[in-house]
């Protein structure tokens, strides 16, 4: 580690109060003056997934209970990856006023979005887990693997988020492109279906999708009740490390240019 790295880590540590304030702002502000408040964060995906489980289980002629657990296990990691990638696009452009007025380590903007969404995601997961238990899903000690899964997913999503946050400053169109790209990627990710149900060029395309290993990290313990295979863990770890390193490298290379382009 160079002194530049040490300086950045020290700076980030000294700004953790601001980071926490931004996370708090993101978490509670949306639901000010609503009756359910923060519960909306949980109700929203639950209702959405229930409808999807109901429609697609009948479409695929699958057992509703089994399909619901299968879908929940895929939607949790997808939901977090999708929100971090798309919401990070606004990390700097939505805070233009602040960035132009006062110096803050800029990494706290994308980092606060990713952290807030991680908290959202963990809480929705807990709510879903309670439902899975209620409808009789298998719960076992393999669930202790999930913190690792969340950590890897967080690193991967944050890496992507760092890149989208900076790129959007330079190319404003990107915030809309990302939303469309994510809709496409959703169908190229085995969330509604199983990867081995595909064949031919689509299967190959899905095989190249970097999100797939992260889905497996959640689906193995939640749906099949087993610890993910070593190869899945290894691939997910590699992808998350490469992504976060690329994200940080790109971010720090462009950091000083951001304020001039807002």
């Amino acid at each position, binding site marked *: 580690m160079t002194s530049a790295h040490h300086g950045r880590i020290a700076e980030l540590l000294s700004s953790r*109060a*601001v980071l*926490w*304030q931004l996370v708090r*702002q993101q978490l509670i*502000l949306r639901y*000010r003056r609503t009756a359910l408040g923060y519960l909306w964060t949980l109700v929203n995906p639950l209702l959405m997934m229930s409808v999807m489980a109901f429609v697609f289980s009948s479409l695929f002629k699958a057992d509703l209970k089994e399909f619901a657990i299968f879908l929940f296990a895929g939607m949790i990691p997808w939901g977090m990856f999708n929100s971090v990638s798309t919401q990070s696009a606004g990390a700097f452009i939505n805070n233009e*006023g*602040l*960035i*132009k*007025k*006062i*110096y*803050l380590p800029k990494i706290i903007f994308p980092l606060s979005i990713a952290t807030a969404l991680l908290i959202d995601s963990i809480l929705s997961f807990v709510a879903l887990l309670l439902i899975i238990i209620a409808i009789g899903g298998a719960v076992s000690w393999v669930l202790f693997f999930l913190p690792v899964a969340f950590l890897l997913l967080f690193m991967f999503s944050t890496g992507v988020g760092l890149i989208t946050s900076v790129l959007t400053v*330079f*190319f*404003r*169109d*990107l915030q809309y*492109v990302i939303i469309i790209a994510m809709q496409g990627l959703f169908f190229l990710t085995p969330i509604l279906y199983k990867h081995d149900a595909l064949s031919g060029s689509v299967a190959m395309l899905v095989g190249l999708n970097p999100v797939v290993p992260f889905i497996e990290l959640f689906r193995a313990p939640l749906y099949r009740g087993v610890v993910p295979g070593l190869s899945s863990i290894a691939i997910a770890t590699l992808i998350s490390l490469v992504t976060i390193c690329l994200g940080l490298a790109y971010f720090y290379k462009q950091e*000083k240019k951001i*304020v*001039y*382009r807002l």
Partner: protein
Amino acid sequence: MSGIIVSGLSIKFRVYHDRSPSLKDSFASIFKRRGKSSFSDFLAVNDVSFEIKSGDRVGIVGHNGAGKSTLLKALCRVYESDEGLIRVDGRLAPLLEIGAGFHPEFTGRENIYLNGAILGYTQNQLFDIEPEVIAFAELEEFIDTPVKYYSTGMYMRLAFSLATAMHPDILVLDEIFAGGDAAFMERATKRMYEMIDKANIMIMVSHDHNLVRSLCNRVLWLDHGKLIADGDPEQVINSYLRGA
């Protein structure tokens, strides 16, 4: 000991003649290298060097657009440049735009913690100064109301009380500001002067030349981004006014 060293500092802005480049334009320009470029570079601060020592009270004068505010923002690290060097020793407090980061949906009290964190206060410090900030702003009654319901004066009072609650080593001011009614203005002005007195170094931009004469022991004159003069307030201001 506080001190500031600025050497060979240039700050370059890119001025776009039409609009921000889209993804499409960026791709197109990879293939099309000729034609007139859609932007030009503009030096807001042009090769400026100076040194400020402990105890200095520095005023910066110049026309609108001379680069005064940009220079202050560079000292506060809002604009970071690849050309030149800035070294700041000491805790620097920018009082450039108070209320930065105030969130309209948050209550006054929540904003003390949010804006305070942005200003670099620790949570413990904020806890300690909270009653004093609220009392100085005279907002005891409305401190748990979202600031979007505040009047402009109430908003300014809270922002000012918070921004001036701690005494920094280096004070950076863009005009002396004080909002609110006459009574508050009087207390605020008094508090500003106290802060200036206690600061180790003070740097201010102002168009009020009498104020600069009375507060500063040194004046920098900027014109079109260049440092024209640096010295005794009376001499520099007089030559600036003659030139103007």
